[in-house]
């Protein structure tokens, strides 16, 4: 059967690509410039979190080594998100166009009992979302222009756009609050049955 349901498993392949599971050496000016952006988006903290020691860690809950995630693109349990948080955070930001924290629906029992640190009211939440959308849209336009400039070999223009994009990323990094959120009971009790 060839037709049918829109396939979504492919997103893991995309994930593998976007999360750098199968990194390829830069082979063209475009890739060189884009890889600089990716490296700068990760920042020194992320690079230290991505050290060989960190990558050798196994999930304390399910025992999955990080190397397996790099191969399969799939995590083993809820606790993997905490165990590998330092490694995952920059990758998630890349895969989600700069999104680092959840905004949106949450389990009813949490909505009743806790106030999320990042969004106390619906108005604030919507305002944050609007700002986030606008910022991403600007970054996306910059990225598109950059790709077009490189494709047409306008390297001076490309370098200028790259600087703008790096500047925007640096602003975002400065705004981002270091996160060590308390997980919900949903993940904290993570015991297996």
């Amino acid at each position, binding site marked *: 059967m060839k*037709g049918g349901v829109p396939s979504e498993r492919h997103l893991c392949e995309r994930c593998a690509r976007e999360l750098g599971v199968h990194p390829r050496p830069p082979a063209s000016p475009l890739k060189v410039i884009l890889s600089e952006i990716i490296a700068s988006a990760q920042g020194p903290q992320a690079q230290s979190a991505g050290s060989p020691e960190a990558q050798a860690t196994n999930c304390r809950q399910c025992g999955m080594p990080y190397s397996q995630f790099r191969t399969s693109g799939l995590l083993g349990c809820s606790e993997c998100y905490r165990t590998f948080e330092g490694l995952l955070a920059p990758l998630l930001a890349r895969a989600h166009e700069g999104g680092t*924290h959840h905004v949106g629906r949450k389990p009813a029992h949490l909505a009743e009992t806790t106030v999320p640190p990042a969004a106390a009211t619906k108005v604030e939440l919507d305002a944050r979302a609007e700002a986030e959308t606008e910022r991403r849209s600007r970054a996306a336009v910059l990225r598109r222009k950059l790709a077009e400039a490189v494709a047409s070999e306008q390297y001076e223009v490309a370098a200028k756009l790259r600087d703008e994009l790096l500047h925007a990323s640096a602003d975002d990094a400065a705004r981002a609050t270091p996160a060590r959120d308390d997980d919900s009971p949903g993940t904290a009790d993570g015991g297996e049955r």
Partner: protein
Amino acid sequence: MSEQEPGPFTSETLLQGAAWLSGSGSEADVVISSRVRLARNVAGFRFLSRADRQQRQQVLNVCRERLLRLASSNKIMDRGGRLLWVDVHRAPHLERTLMVERHLISKEHARGPAIFNPTAGQVAQAKPGSQATVSGANGEPRGVAITMPDESLSVMVNEEDHLRLQVLLSGLELTAAFERIARVDDALEGPCPGASGRMEFAFSQRFGYLTACPTNVGTGIRVSVMLHLPGLKLTGEMDKVRRATRDMSLAVRGYYGEGSEAAGEFFQVSNQTTLGKPESVILRELESEIIPQIVQYERTARRMLLDKRRRLIEDKVFRALGTLRHARLLTPDEAIMLLSDVRLGVLTGLIDGLTESRVNQLILLTQPAHLQRALGREMDQGERREARADLVRQRLSI
């Protein structure tokens, strides 16, 4: 459902249900269907890539029990009807393929998952298309719940995540689809008569709903719209669509998913990011911003073709109709391509005596499993080409 029992989709009921192909809903001249899906995992259980068969079975039991209880207390049913449960790992190959063609389960769910080997600590992915998996030898416990008879809600259990909820409606109806799926999402975690304890989803304050693949984490939402854009394809303006979607981080894919050519000018547009934006913004970007814009582009292109290049569009439409009415062999790709042209003819008023829903039905009926079920026998590829052409000739006869 076992190998011996008849499946839910018989030759008599094939054209019932699949409400998403009814041609109703907003902007249905351009928007075929709207789909919203949520990825969820049950707290306290490993994700499936690290779960052994016993753990998968436990997840399946918990989810099946809850879904069926909620259905019987009418908490997740919309307009009456019943909730059908199918053990996908026990379903015959043809039955699984029928559900794929009806967009009720994914190809991966039909095929079966990667299997975790706890001794080796490795995941072995069954090779796509291998005989063992296609014939259903992968018996890893997995299932799907489907609202009958409209099939608008389906819940896959043990696909990539423990739960994949989907609402699929005809036309541009994303808000309605989201409201529906949000009710089901709430009901699954809410009180459930007769069930033991609550069901909690894996969730963290920082990352939101936790999913096996980090590309789905956060809202876990995937919103997609199936569009029919023959006008823009003919006028060579598909770049307009690609530009409009690229800046918003949306993906454009063909009818068959990523990597596929757009068979018959059917395209899917969907969100790619799930972390950092609330569902309302993701929905609004598609439903109120991008899709209406594309719909307008397409309508303008169709009008322009009718006004200024009528002979071109007439030739395309009637050439397709002629081929479908006289061909003796048809592949699925050729059928969908020609039916796409005929659909354009119906919508622009060039073809009389045919309805949009009849064309939509043929798109479904000419798929391999539907064809075999409609004719009541299994056929090889060559036989299917003959049977497909016969069926189309019969249904499009003058």
